[in-house]
């Protein structure tokens, strides 16, 4: 059924010079050690993946079952998978080594027949940060959509970027959303609209819900209400939830059976992981409820930084503060990072942009030290440079 239709598609005509974030993260194994004061506590604000296991967690691990998960013989893993599936209103779940794995497995299980493509936000992790997984694992093209409001894609934008079957095209098969994205909560109403649209066109709905926990705690929308809009969801356990390793994919029975087979193909068929599953369940039950406090701390941080003249790239909804230091004339690598390192604070970023991520193991003291460091860096910079005219305010509604 190849029908030629002219569809208004919003191509990227933005004048922004860099559409896609490139951290140029280095794969080099000779990783340079950080120049921090040894002995003092280090606060790593680069990501919530750094949540570390506690001694208590190893005790929980000891008490878990020790069966073989390749043969689905482990009680603790089954408990975790049933628990999360129920929470999300789905039939089944699959515990995997990483969010990349659960995302790519979820997408791969939907994408069975090339030519085909995925439509998603241009900033999506599945598109930018999974080593080209969609192309590699699913041989699928990607239609990256730059959202006009800078927060989330809309149903209109998704519809405008759907690709129909045509002799030349890779038709859209999956709509992949991310919530939270850059810490931003996608409103349930918009998700519902997109879900209706997708289902009316016979498209699958996948969610990169690595941080759905944060969205849920912030919005009050129950997990199963999100779950009802998607055919599959990938939920991370090793980020803000605090487990040392793992992520979980939810879907219906047939879907998860196929995903399990693919998991073995990916080399994710691991053995005695009951301890990891037990710890993950514990963290969901104990750490997720602390997220509102983390979100409050992030808001506090954002307020303090803006009062110093630093700007925000996007609003603060949950545990991330994305800053823009143009207005205070700081280069993140040259002016900010060294000052913070001397205070045992680690942040990432380049030029005038940085993403600061909080989690339950970050306390008020760490945040205050970070604020102090930024204050110092600004003062140092102003002392060294003559006063500059205020930076041009650009209305860039697109990516960072």
């Amino acid at each position, binding site marked *: 059924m190849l029908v030629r239709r002219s569809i208004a598609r919003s191509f990227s005509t933005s004048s922004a010079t860099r559409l896609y974030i490139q951290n140029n993260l280095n794969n080099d194994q000779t990783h340079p050690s950080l120049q921090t004061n040894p002995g003092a506590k280090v606060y790593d604000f680069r990501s919530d993946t750094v949540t570390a296991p506690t001694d208590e967690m190893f005790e929980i691990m000891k008490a878990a079952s020790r069966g*073989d998960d390749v043969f689905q013989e482990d009680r603790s893993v089954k408990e975790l998978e049933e628990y999360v599936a129920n929470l999300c209103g789905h039939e089944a779940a699959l515990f995997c080594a990483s969010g*990349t794995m659960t995302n790519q497995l979820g997408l791969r299980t939907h994408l069975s027949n090339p030519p085909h493509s995925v439509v998603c936000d241009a900033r999506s992790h599945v598109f930018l940060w999974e080593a080209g997984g969609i192309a590699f694992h699913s041989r699928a093209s990607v239609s990256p959509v730059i959202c006009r409001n800078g927060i989330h894609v809309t149903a209109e934008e998704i519809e405008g970027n759907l690709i129909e079957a045509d002799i030349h095209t890779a038709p859209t098969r999956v709509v992949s959303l991310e919530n939270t994205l850059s810490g931003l909560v996608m409103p349930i109403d918009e998700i519902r609209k997109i879900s209706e649209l997708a289902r009316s066109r016979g498209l699958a709905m996948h969610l990169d819900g690595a941080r759905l926990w944060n969205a849920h705690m912030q919005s009050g929308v129950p997990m199963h209400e999100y779950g009802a809009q998607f055919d599959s969801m990938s939920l991370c356990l090793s980020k803000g939830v605090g487990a040392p390793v793992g992520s979980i994919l939810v879907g219906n029975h047939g879907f998860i059976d196929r995903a399990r087979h693919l998991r073995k193909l*990916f080399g994710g068929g691991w053995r005695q992981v009951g301890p990891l599953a037990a710890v993950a369940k514990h963290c969901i039950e104990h750490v997720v409820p602390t997220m509102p406090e983390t979100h409050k701390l992030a808001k506090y941080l954002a307020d303090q930084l803006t009062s110093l003249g630093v700007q925000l790239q996007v609003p603060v909804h949950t545990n991330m503060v994305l800053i823009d230091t143009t207005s205070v004339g700081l280069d993140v690598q040259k002016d900010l990072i060294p000052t913070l390192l001397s205070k045992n604070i680690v942040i990432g970023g380049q030029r005038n942009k940085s993403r600061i991520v909080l989690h339950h193991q970050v306390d008020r003291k760490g945040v205050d030290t970070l604020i102090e460091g930024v204050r110092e860096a600004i003062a140092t910079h102003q002392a060294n440079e003559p006063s500059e005219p205020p930076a041009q305010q650009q209305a860039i509604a697109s990516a960072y």
Partner: protein
Amino acid sequence: MSPVIDNAAREHVYDLTSDTATQPTDEMFDLMKTASRGDDVFTADDDSNDLEAFMANMLGQEAALFCTSGTQSNQIGLRTLLNQPPHSVLCDARAHIFVHECGGLSYHSQASVTPVMPKKGLYLTAEDVEANINKDTLTGAVTRVVALENTLNGTIMPIEEIRRIRAVCDKHGLYLHLDGARLWNASAATGVSMSEYGKLFDSISVCLSKGAGAPIGSIIASTKDRIRHARHLRKLMGGGWRQAGFLAKIARHCIETAVPTMPETHKLATRLANHLQSLGIRLVLPCHTNMLFIDTAPTGLTVEDFAVELKKKNIKITATPGSTISRVVLHYQVTPEVIEQFMDVATSVVKLHGKPVNTTSMETDVKEDNGNSTIEPLTAAYPSGKN
């Protein structure tokens, strides 16, 4: 080693279906607390880095990578050698990388496979390899990698033959990969060091979660450049795990405590093999290390007849309904007492239900070196693709 108690408060079942059944012990969880807690995606975890350096050194290679499974370390290692299709891998037709990795070679590397049945006996020879190299650059998928497996079905490939195959590869400009999931067992049985084996290969996969005893994980070792690529591939395959330090630490602990006990495990396997043979049960393959492939047909019984009685003693073996062939795998958590029980049960089953067998006049079909016996299909020993 004291038996492991399953802390779901059930009676412990001794699982002899595979050495992947090795379970973590209570001491291991205590040890985990002392491990580093850095993020391994950023290569910022000391214990993960230490394990990798330790294994690279042990295998005579420049670098190594800690992966979630043997399938992953094999497929990643092979992928780093397979850069431009059309290309193919030459391996034993029974190889795990070909039969039990979900078609990974085709999927991850778009590679064809030339599966070779060893012409005379247990392992591929240099002649087997040379006779099957594909050089057709017009219509063929040229051979790029020769992949060996040691041990394969518990049997050992002699280092001399590996050297001969290395020479063939060098002559034809081919890479040589080793699926050394159970290389530990080969090394323990022959006295050849891990690095002496390791140095002969361009990439080596060594499993930590089988006989070596760790709950999770496997290692791929190769050159620095290939391991850098492997780390990137690992992320692509979803193996980029975070705070894996505690897994690395106990893997290291297991290498130091479980691996040295392998000679005892091998002795137990031989003891069991000899006893079963004395009852008339036939060995399909020689017992070189920790595995037995048995054929109960001469006794007139099926494997299930034994399995049912063994189960009553909490001993689990692979039993495909109606089949007389099974694979029995030992590891360090299977105690001598368990083997004594196994032998007693087998004796009484044969005595009560089996037909009398004259074992003194029975020819052993098993040749120790490359005699002219044919290798039998062992599919019945792998009912659900257990590895």
